């Protein structure tokens, strides 16, 4: 994929994640399968979307908290891997994508942290000068500069991340192959293990103060479906 287009997509996802609107356009369960489909990597898109969404579904951006960012991590990974032109529809790129995207989920919020610090140290004083002067236009200009600088930093970070993933992917292929086909496969393939862990956490989060009553509510939904799945050929 063209780097300019990849950067534009990353920028939209970043701006949507906190500075503008928060329309959840970058939710992995929706955007990553769609991007995977468009980039010719449907299996990678589905698995990345499924695992990243489920693993971070109970991470909440409450107050000033910076939870893991699956949207940027997933988009950077998928775009970087598509530029590396790996063989698309096998387990190797799926595992490779998960290996890359999971740590990125915890790294991506540093971009937000850096921007918020810049806002406090660089742009807030400009706003306060405008407030002191009672100058609404200067306040508007300060917002324009803040927004433009936020977008520029987002673009620069996205370019660095995408190019890094693209250049690291060929080096990580042996590990991905080992996980997919070698002795590291274990009893249960890694993506399923991640899904099981995340689902348990989500269930606990959803049960909340409802405790056992809600556990049984979930089991009430699970057991008939499990019976149906077991009975199906």
């Amino acid at each position, binding site marked *: 994929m063209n780097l300019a287009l990849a950067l534009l997509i990353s920028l939209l996802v970043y701006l949507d994640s906190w500075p503008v609107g928060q329309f959840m356009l970058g939710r992995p369960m929706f955007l990553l399968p769609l991007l995977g489909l468009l980039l010719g990597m449907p299996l990678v898109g589905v698995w990345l979307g499924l695992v990243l*969404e489920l693993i971070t579904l109970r991470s909440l951006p409450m*107050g000033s908290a910076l939870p893991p960012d699956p949207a940027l991590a997933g988009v950077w990974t998928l775009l970087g891997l598509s530029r590396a032109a790996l063989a698309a529809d096998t387990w190797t790129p799926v595992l490779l994508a998960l290996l890359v995207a999971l740590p990125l989920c915890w790294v991506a919020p540093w971009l937000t942290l850096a921007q918020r610090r810049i806002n406090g140290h660089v742009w807030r004083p400009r706003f306060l000068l405008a407030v002191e002067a009672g100058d609404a236009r200067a306040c508007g200009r300060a917002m324009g500069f803040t927004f433009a600088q936020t977008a520029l930093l987002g673009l620069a970070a996205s370019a660095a991340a995408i190019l890094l993933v693209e250049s690291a992917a060929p080096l990580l292929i042996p590990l991905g192959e080992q996980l997919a086909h070698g002795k590291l496969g274990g009893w249960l393939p890694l993506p399923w293990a991640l899904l099981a*862990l995340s689902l348990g956490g989500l269930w*606990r989060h959803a049960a909340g103060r409802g405790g056992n009553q809600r556990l049984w509510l979930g089991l009430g939904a699970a057991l008939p479906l499990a019976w149906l799945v077991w009975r199906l050929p």
Partner: protein
Amino acid sequence: MNAGLLRRLFLRSLFIQAAWNYRGMQHLGLLWAQLPALPEDKEARRAAMARGAEFYNAHPYLCGYLLGAAARLEPQGEGESLSRLKKAALSPLGAVGDRLFWAGLRPLAGAVGVLGLALLAASPSASTQGLYWAVALGALAVLAFNIVHLQWRWRALRDGFDLGLGVAQSIRGLVNHQGLAHTGAALCVLAGLMAPLLGAGAADAGGLPGVLMFLLLLAAGWQLPARRWSLPALLGLLGLLWLLP
């Protein structure tokens, strides 16, 4: 006149977090959003801007209540009352918004999308058409989430503008909102529906040991404390287990 002003305030309220910082948090976003509604008089405007730049941090989707109230009260010279309202409303707006949107509707929309993908991943004969359906379900979940929060944002702004100081009653009504009670239960049902689908996929991938491992990890996930370090720590442990011969 009012409709045009409300539209401008609404569009600006979407940028409430654009200048978020650790000193005043969303205060600069709120200040910028209320600029079109400030009084004409220079001294009154300066005082209103100073009040607008006071500390502010609440749920971004619910800022409309105070933004609308500011647009009503500042031109009437009731800025001091607005300032008191703002201080009193910060905690309820933050707490209710977080519970309703971040802990309720957002995971619910995400879980609906995940359910579609889980169905696809668990099916050995999944086709491209199945993927289209899963993407469409995800898009529908995102669309439904956006309809709810955008409609709520608009209604909050109008309530604030129409009621002025009386918006405190609307904010009090939010605390007992029925939606808070139902989202957790709905999420539990969705998690319950996902479990057999993903379990079937694990059975395909790893046979009986795969299913047992899946159930064990499901229980481990249930017990995992909701802390920032807990998931990376468990993933690291899982990685080490995988590396054992």
